[in-house]
């Protein structure tokens, strides 16, 4: 799918969050697109929870290996130095602190870092998959999401109304409007998307944000 310009910039900005040498898990959806913004020789190890470190480029149907998918079902490839392992080892890596960064989608993020992204009671409850442990245990958790839902309601909130994926886990949020950090129980506005005003962001955010003096960086 082609992304809108605003989403594309969000994803490109999120890609800069990845530091050389990191082990990174990119959640299903927008986060997966982040990889398109990394240089081909960038030193990073991508992890997928169904049992691989060292994800290579996604493959088209004709070149796909029927035994090689990521957790979202996409046909992927390996790189030199990839390793396969079972699901217990895969989540051991996550829980024992070897996952430096994960990027996840969100329904709601609260100002204390609570994340809700897996269940809408009565409407959507297909199960949490691997998201719980990624959210709770990655050393750094960043969220990629539109700033508001389709109806225009804010997704950054004082408190989550939906069942939590993990409490207090989110460190940073990339949206189509802004970069927002979660620190000491509050949202901190860090950057603004091109063409978005401070007032737009404040209006689209469901909780008070700490806003620094002076001009904010643009992405």
């Amino acid at each position: 799918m082609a992304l809108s310009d605003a989403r594309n910039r969000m994803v490109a900005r999120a890609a800069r969050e990845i530091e050389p040498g990191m082990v990174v898990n990119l959640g299903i959806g927008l986060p997966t697109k982040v990889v398109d913004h990394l240089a081909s020789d960038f030193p990073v190890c991508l992890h997928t929870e169904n049992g691989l470190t060292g994800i290579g480029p996604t493959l088209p149907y004709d070149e796909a290996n029927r035994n090689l998918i990521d957790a979202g079902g996409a046909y992927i490839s390996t790189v030199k130095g990839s390793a396969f392992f079972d699901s217990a080892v895969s989540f051991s890596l996550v829980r024992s602190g070897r996952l430096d960064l994960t990027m996840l989608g969100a329904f709601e993020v609260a100002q204390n870092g609570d994340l809700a992204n897996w269940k809408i009671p009565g409407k959507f409850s297909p199960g949490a998959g691997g998201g719980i442990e990624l959210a709770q245990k990655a050393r750094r958790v960043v969220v990629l999401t539109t700033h508001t839902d389709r109806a225009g309601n804010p997704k950054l909130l004082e408190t989550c109304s939906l069942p939590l994926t993990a409490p207090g886990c989110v460190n940073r949020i990339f949206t189509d409007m802004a970069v927002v950090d979660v620190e000491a129980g509050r949202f901190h506005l860090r950057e603004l998307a091109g063409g978005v005003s401070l007032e737009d962001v404040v209006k689209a955010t469901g909780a008070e944000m700490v806003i620094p003096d002076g001009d904010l960086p643009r992405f």
Partner: protein
Amino acid sequence: MRLANKTCAMEEAVAHIGDGTTVMLGGFGVPGTPFALIHEVVRQGPKDLTIIKNDANEKGMGVDHLLAAGLVRKLIVTHIGLNARAIEMMNAGEIEVEFCAQGMLAERVRAGGAGLMGFVTDIGVGTELADGKPRIEIDGHAGVLETALRADVALIHAARADTFGNLAYEATARNFSPLMAMAADRVIAEAEEIVPLGGIAPNAVHTAGPFVDHVVELGELSGEYGVVRRA
């Protein structure tokens, strides 16, 4: 000393699955799902099964055949979002569904396979996933007790097996299979290829033969094993 031969006809191996059996199924999506063994279960038709698997596959594939045939009483899974029938049957109360976080399902199965009673984890603490689970504190840290899972039968897909039941998996088809192959009273492995003893190097074995009871050779693989063409 020589090692026993465990090769077996599929019909005979699957006949051990009676009504009310708890069955573990390897696989994460397509890779590792034992489609041929599942078809034989459908053909034999045991009822009231409890199925433990990562997911419910997609409509028209794998677990979905068991659901469509009305053989399933309960699913223990991590995610069923790709199978609309599973969601409908859950919402209609036609099947019971127990959800686990994915790594928790892996560890519960592993604990069963390791002969442990359960484990203590902080995963899910502070969320509804911890509801109803006994709280256990260790050195001041809050955790919950997760109990071990075992099954009567595990159905496993391997790329290669030798006649003693040593198994090797291919790529991300490994996933839950080595764990489930340790956690069932009877383990049935279907293999794309059966090699003679010694055909898998001892350092390259993923599941050791003593865990496996029956080895069944697959003929030509059906379309279900292939690459799924998506829109």
